[in-house]
């Protein structure tokens, strides 16, 4: 679904939707909001007769309020980017505040420590600032940010390999990183959950789940095809299924997942 369409769905009061649009929502989100439902001031959908949250009313496990939210909470990121390109410091600060936590988490899932992630984040912003003219208004901004972040991460990885260790040690390290949870941030359940995955798989899952990017956006960020991204996700899920089905796996072990 295109960003503009997602925004339209998110912004439209539910009463104004046509029946055909409801059908489209059902198909797209897999939940069935009643047309009689009302959109309260907080933006949550409730059944008018019972006042219960729409989730229970609709009889599905999917929280429809979440489903109606745009895929990216940073919906006007593109507009902010345009202002940033025009030299607006306020817009630049807002972009930094919105994107940095996601990027930091992205780096933390891949690197050894929080200090490394901080350094990578700083380096990424310097790079983003230097090449901000390469962002085109109207294009999705998240893939642009993540493409640069990936470049910085790969660069950093290569530099650290050359300076700190030989090729053999690198292999040992990447194996270690791929098989053991990082100790950098024990509170981060996602890192522990993604630890068994390879670097590429972890990266794709991070983008899909944390950044909320679509498959096409992930493909843009990773300079690959949608088919290739789908394949990585499929393999990642297969590995996760194996890990989670193992007898030692407890649902509560991954920080707030219970």
């Amino acid at each position: 679904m295109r960003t503009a369409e997602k925004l339209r769905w998110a912004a439209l009061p539910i009463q104004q939707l046509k029946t055909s649009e409801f059908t489209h929502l059902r198909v797209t989100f897999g939940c069935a909001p009643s047309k009689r439902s009302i959109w309260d001031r907080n933006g949550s959908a409730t059944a008018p007769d019972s006042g219960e949250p729409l989730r229970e009313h609709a009889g599905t496990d999917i929280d429809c309020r979440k489903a109606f939210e745009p895929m990216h909470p940073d919906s006007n990121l593109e507009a902010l980017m345009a202002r940033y390109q025009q030299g607006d410091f306020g817009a630049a600060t807002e972009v930094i505040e919105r994107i940095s936590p996601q990027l930091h988490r992205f780096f933390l899932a891949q690197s050894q420590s929080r200090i490394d992630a901080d350094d990578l984040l700083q380096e990424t912003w310097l790079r983003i600032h230097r090449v901000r003219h390469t962002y085109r208004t109207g294009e999705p901004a998240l893939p642009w940010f993540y493409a640069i972040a990936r470049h910085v991460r790969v660069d950093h990885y290569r530099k650290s390999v050359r300076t700190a260790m030989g090729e053999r040690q690198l292999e040992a390290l990447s194996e270690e990183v791929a098989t053991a949870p990082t100790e950098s941030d024990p509170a981060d359940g996602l890192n522990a959950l993604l630890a068994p995955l390879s670097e590429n798989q972890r990266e794709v899952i991070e983008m899909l789940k944390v950044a909320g990017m679509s498959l096409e956006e992930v493909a843009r960020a990773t300079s690959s095809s949608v088919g290739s991204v789908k394949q990585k996700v499929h393999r990642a899920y297969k590995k996760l299924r194996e890990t989670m089905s193992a007898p030692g796996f407890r649902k509560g072990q991954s920080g707030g997942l219970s």
Partner: protein
Amino acid sequence: MKEEEIDDFLTRAARVPHDLKPETLERIADSIKPSLRSVSPLPPTWVLAGGLVLICAAVSLAGAARAGFFGFAKMDLLERLLVFPALVILVWLAASEFVHAMIPGSPRRISPGALLTFVSAALLAVFSFLFRDYQTDHFFSIGIVCLLTGFLHAIPAALLGWLLIRRGFAVNSILAGLVAGVLGGLAGVGMLELHCPNFQAAHVLVWHTAVVPLSGAAGALVGWMLRFGASSGARKRANSK
């Protein structure tokens, strides 16, 4: 365990708020503030790709004008109508991909490796359909000259192309170099088709087509050297600090 359950696990884990120190954000904002000024975005892809096509055409025509349009003069109408439009289409494809390679987060329709394969296969198909003279007179001596001539025209085409979109940013300089090389190689092939009057099938299929992979490999090598150079430079700067 079902896929939905894994999905639910991941979604819930992702929703755990991620704290980032406010000082870090302030430091980042402060670091960009001094150099914050208005910048003009890059032109649309079709403008840049059009510019690249014109560069390739200019290089090919300039080279053929200097060496002579013997190949073009010897071609019949069908050969002209098949060879040059095919080259224009392939140059447009390579130019679009080069632009995409220089803009982060651009959609990738075809991978650089697939582009090289597709371009080479398309040239082989067109040449094998048109040229049916299977003699191989002076195969190596004349062939090497054509290969070098094509390659020497690929270099300025790729350099001028890079100059046109130097404001872009290649997230993978090796692959961007490969695409630039393919684009330059097509300019070299264009020059050879305009100039070379040798229509022996083996000569055209091997030596003319080989300009594209050779230029692509050279472009990838330059991209690798740039990446290596950038990494080494950064390391030296870090050590000097």
